[in-house]
């Protein structure tokens, strides 16, 4: 039960662009997920390199595509 409660309340931390860039430069590719939750047209116009696109309305159906053990940076 404690684990269930802990999962519900995993905090989401806000980081700024500098912190995000530092994180991505300091961590090997494949060790984290960069997640873009916008629409495909927005992604096409510009996206942070390496971002995985999962539009927000589809996110709840797409959890199996993402590794919950890996840190996620989402925008």
């Amino acid at each position, binding site marked *: 039960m404690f684990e269930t409660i802990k999962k519900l309340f995993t905090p*989401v931390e806000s980081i*700024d*662009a500098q912190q995000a860039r530092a994180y991505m430069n300091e961590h090997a*590719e494949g060790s984290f997920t960069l997640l873009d939750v*916008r629409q495909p047209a927005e992604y096409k116009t510009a*996206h942070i*390199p390496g971002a995985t696109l999962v539009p927000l309305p589809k996110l709840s159906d797409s959890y199996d595509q993402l590794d919950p053990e890996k840190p*996620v940076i989402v925008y």
Partner: protein
Amino acid sequence: MLAGQGFKEVYNLSGGIMAWDGGVAKGPVELNLEMVREDETPEAIIKLAYGMEQSLASFYRSMETRTKDSELLKLLELLASIEDRHKQYLLELYKSIEPSGSSREVFEADVSAKIMEGGFDGDTFIKKNEKFLHSVLEMIDLSMMLETQALDLYLRFARKTDNNETKTMLFRIADEEKAHLSSLGRLREEKTL
């Protein structure tokens, strides 16, 4: 949403992409993904990356014949030599997984160098962009754009492949591109001071 689904660490990029001050990649998810299937071996991916590095080095050397500006010439030679170092890195990666593999000559004979990093056709790219490339800063910006697209492409390749060893190889190549981008960023800062 993620936090309630067992995701251990979730970070929200404050301000979203509008706040992002690094390079951005353009194009849809499927851009240039036809360059790979889902089952390439690590060796095949290394050869693909090697070809793209070779093509970009040729692009820079081709641009050298189109300018007499000494600063630009120095920069172009530097950029080409960096691509040569990347080729060497890829050769070493190849030897690490195929110690008794092909010689460099045989390896290179099996490489196609028509497509530059990021998936651009070299000849078309020169025709389209030559008029923009008359200054050191413009060339650095172009190089950063190409490397940003390359980083994005390698990571999209990694998501496409079913082969875990190939995925790992692509992540290593992408890490090399990230380091290259950082060094280009520092070079750009030096040139704007």
